[in-house]
């Protein structure tokens, strides 16, 4: 596993919805090595405060070596990143973590909620490009309302992927939860579900898949200091007891391995 620490140039910064920002970085070495579900650690300050890097899923890469991250401004680090201007150099580490297992599945369903859609775009494009003939995954995206959801859908539509939408307030697509939409797809144990989003959403997806015996991979988040297995700070409890480390054992896990009650 080869990881790289690099200063890379910010090529473009876009506010794609209120408080949601997409950065495009010129990072050919990291982009070349990355697989969907992996992440990068980004330094947000020039000084010592904020001290730690921030983890972000790789949202998309392209053949010119550009790498995108998509994030919500929630605190000091993301605020700083949102203010960065084109031409600035950002220090990033990556690619980190294990990534999704694309398996053999011809019947993949990607279920994202809120910023959880970030890693799913890269995953969807990989499915389309797979060597043994591309497959078009099904994509279910959920958010609180139309304003949040619609800007996140565009990239999937541009790939020619139909998006099944669900909003909490019914202002767009299905009025309700992504799991309600997921139920209607009649997936089987031959299908695979890939999910990323708020914990309650992923727990619901997991429970549904468990009941229906559908394989399900989830990408989980924790606080991180190092992102590379050194600090042991990113523990998540395992069903079998003990802990896994999100940065090195994950961030993608078979949903059944994790202890969801916590």
């Amino acid at each position: 596993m080869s990881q790289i620490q690099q200063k890379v140039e910010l090529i473009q910064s876009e506010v794609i919805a209120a408080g949601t920002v997409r950065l495009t970085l010129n990072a050919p070495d990291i982009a070349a090595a990355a697989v969907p579900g992996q992440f990068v650690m980004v330094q947000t300050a020039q000084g010592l405060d904020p001290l730690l890097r921030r983890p972000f899923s790789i949202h998309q890469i392209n053949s010119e070596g550009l790498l995108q991250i998509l994030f919500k401004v929630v605190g000091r680090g993301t605020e700083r990143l949102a203010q960065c201007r084109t031409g600035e150099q950002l220090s990033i580490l990556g690619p980190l973590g294990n990534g999704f297992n694309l398996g053999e599945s011809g019947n993949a369903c990607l279920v994202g909620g809120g910023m959880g859609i970030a890693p799913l775009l890269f995953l969807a494009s990989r499915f389309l490009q797979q060597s043994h003939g591309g497959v078009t995954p099904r994509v279910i995206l959920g958010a609180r309302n139309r304003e949040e959801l619609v800007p996140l859908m565009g990239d999937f539509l541009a790939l020619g992927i139909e998006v099944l939408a669900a909003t909490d307030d019914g202002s767009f697509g299905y009025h309700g939860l992504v799991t309600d939409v997921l139920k209607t797809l009649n997936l089987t144990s031959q299908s695979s579900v890939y999910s990323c989003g708020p914990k309650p959403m992923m727990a619901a997806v997991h429970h549904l898949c468990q009941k229906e015996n559908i394989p399900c991979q989830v990408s989980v988040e924790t606080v991180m200091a190092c992102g590379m297995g050194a600090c042991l700070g990113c523990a998540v409890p395992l069903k079998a007891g003990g802990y896994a480390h999100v940065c090195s054992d994950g961030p993608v896990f078979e949903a059944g391995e994790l202890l969801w009650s916590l």
Partner: protein
Amino acid sequence: MEPVNVKMDELDLRVSIGSLKLQNPVMTASGTFGYAREFESYVHLQRLGAVVVKGISLEPRAGNPPPRIFETACGMLNAIGLENVGVDRFISEKMPYLSALGVPVIVNILGDSVDEYRQLAERLAESPGVAAIEVNISCPNVKKGGVAFGTDPQMAAAVTKAVKQGCQVPVIVKLSPNVTDVTLVARAVEEAGADAVSLINTLIGMAIDLKSRRPRLANVIGGLSGPAIKPVALRMVYQVAQAVSIPIIGIGGIASAEDAMEFLLAGACAVQVGTASFVNPRATEDVLDGIATYVREQKLESVRDLIGALRIG
């Protein structure tokens, strides 16, 4: 990984910790560098002065429930709870890679009783790759043992004696900063036979989430590390340097060569880079390159010219 870009052939960066000879004074700090392999993409590991590995106990430990870490102003809190694979798996799974690196491997140990420390030392003494043992008597996270050993000079001395009896390799005792007078513990472990002391371990701290009104760490309190604690660490190294004659290894908030050289001037023979490796995985090597550049530019005969060279008055 970047190519090595500071020529060091002609420079004398060697230091000794008792009978342990190091090619340079830059080590990793326990618990912040994993078992070294985690950093092989970032650091030319064979260039390090020594590698200090995560604290090892007799039995494997699962560690504390999450959240285990929280960022603070220029620092971080951790309450990992000493998660580790246990001494047996450490020797069978981790030592082969470590001993092949060609740099001294220092094993950090922790126990719940004096006898556990002795047993750990005995087990590790059997493993040929172990260059020295660093005794963690200062970890604030585990309720049993940890705190008391590090804050009571007599207990600290007892642990030191037990470890010395258990092994032949140099024994470094790692001191806690959470004491009224760090020189008392330093003197006690020196008398008990410690070959060196390293300091500081983390300061005990806490943070609260206003939204949930809960502690930010599941363990409630945790250890504060990073640049925030550097002034406290440097002061304690300076104080201990006046109080003992065994070698001192300086630790606490070191993120640059300038930081490291402050510790050398204050009396440390070597340094450990901790939290900085999380932010900049190449921090250890950057510190080394910076020291080398300074030694060359200042035309010092050796890096040892810096040790204790602080001018006062």
